[in-house]
């Protein structure tokens, strides 16, 4: 004969299992029914502190494929590296805006800028930057010329620029513009003249 205590224990455990199953089922239904939180695409750049400054940036215009010098006011830190990062972040904010003349993904970001003396700057962009880049010889050249010329204009002494993606060397920006080498600032200045004189 089965002991009475054993029967009570088994019955209680069985009831508990049923109750837990119902609870989990309800939780699952609630989870499926509730709206999913949207993925946040805006990048979170570190806040730039410093006085507002008027700087010249070179802005790309996909139509008609030009590069134009434009004056903008942005906060810039005193440190040389922070200043370089602030400059390029100010430029990128023009491209990630809704009415951009040269659209990039909203999550496009300048991760860091390293200034290596003598005259070398390394720009590290994130993967969203290249994923949102329009593929094409001219479109990619406009992006590169815009970055390099903006930096060179505001950072005297710069002679070469290297572009990395997520800290690594990538073959091309979006299938065309070569990222394996260094960009010569003088060459880019010549390209900017060509792109401005159309």
């Amino acid at each position, binding site marked *: 004969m089965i002991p009475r205590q054993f029967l009570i224990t088994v019955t209680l455990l069985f009831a508990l299992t049923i109750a837990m199953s119902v609870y989990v089922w309800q939780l699952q239904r609630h989870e499926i029914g509730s709206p999913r939180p949207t993925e946040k695409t805006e990048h979170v750049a570190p806040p730039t502190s410093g006085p507002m400054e008027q700087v010249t940036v070179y802005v790309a215009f*996909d*139509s*008609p*494929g030009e590069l134009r010098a434009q004056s903008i006011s942005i906060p810039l830190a005193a440190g040389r590296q922070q200043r370089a990062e602030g400059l390029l972040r100010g430029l990128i904010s023009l491209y990630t805006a809704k009415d951009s003349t040269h659209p990039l993904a909203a999550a496009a970001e300048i991760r860091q800028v390293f200034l290596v003396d003598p005259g070398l700057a390394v720009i590290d962009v994130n993967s969203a930057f290249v994923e949102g880049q*329009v*593929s*094409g*010889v*001219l*479109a990619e*050249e406009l992006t*590169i010329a815009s970055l390099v010329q903006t930096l060179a204009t505001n950072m005297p002494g710069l002679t070469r620029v290297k572009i990395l993606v997520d800290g690594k060397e990538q073959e*091309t920006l*979006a*299938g*065309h*513009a*070569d990222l*394996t*080498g260094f*960009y*010569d600032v*003088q*060459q880019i200045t*010549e*390209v900017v003249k*060509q*792109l401005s004189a*159309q």
Partner: protein
Amino acid sequence: MLSNSGDRGWLARCRWAATAGALLSALALIGAQTIPPAAAPQTQPQSQSPTAQPSQPSPNQASRGQTQPPVQSVGASPKPLIMIDPAHGGSESGAVLNPTILEKDITLALARRLRVDLGGRGFVAELVRDSDVNLSTDDRAAKANAAHPTLYVCLHATSESGGIGIYTAMLAENGETNGPFVDWSTAQFSFLPASHAAQQEIAAAMQKSGMPARSLTAPLRPLGNMTSPAVAVELAPMKADVSQLSAADFQQNISAALANGIAQFLSSSGAPR
């Protein structure tokens, strides 16, 4: 140490070899004197002949500002060879111009048309790829360089309506050159004057056909690796309508204008047809 009998045999063999050598030398001298003067230069190594490799201007020539484009190299087809490179291919589709139009398909279609148009003008044209295959930029440059073309034309396409772009390599300075060996990344350097000449002729032909064209330099591989005059052409729709790129009449007009520009460049460089 050799034995006496061995020494004698060795000396005998030496004497026989010396006699045979002297006889052969005498015969060679007599034979050389009987070769007609016109045929004599053919026996010289190519490097000693000033006209041996007219298609390979030295870096010094370029630095002296000589803009004479090179002509077909010795040993290749007497007709100028134009190497057409339809960019992208295989899993590397290039720009997605719209959901149904890929850059790799547009470039291949245009390349095939251009081959026909150039053939009709009496030139030999070959494609770097004639099917939907993956090729790295190094593979493309190696294949084209091995053919010693008179001109290399790389084709691209974009959805941005900014006019047709005619590009040459963006090279800041010549790389390390050691005799016949040149730096791979700057191999194009000594050919830049000729590439610019081709660029100007193609842009002029485009303008003449009523198509807006721009001449630019670009950091675009494999232009920098080419050991011949080299240009890249980026096809663009005249308006915002990307489907124009795949239209037969639009491609035919572009191809005809390109062929005219190439023919003009080859004509001005004195290349034979």
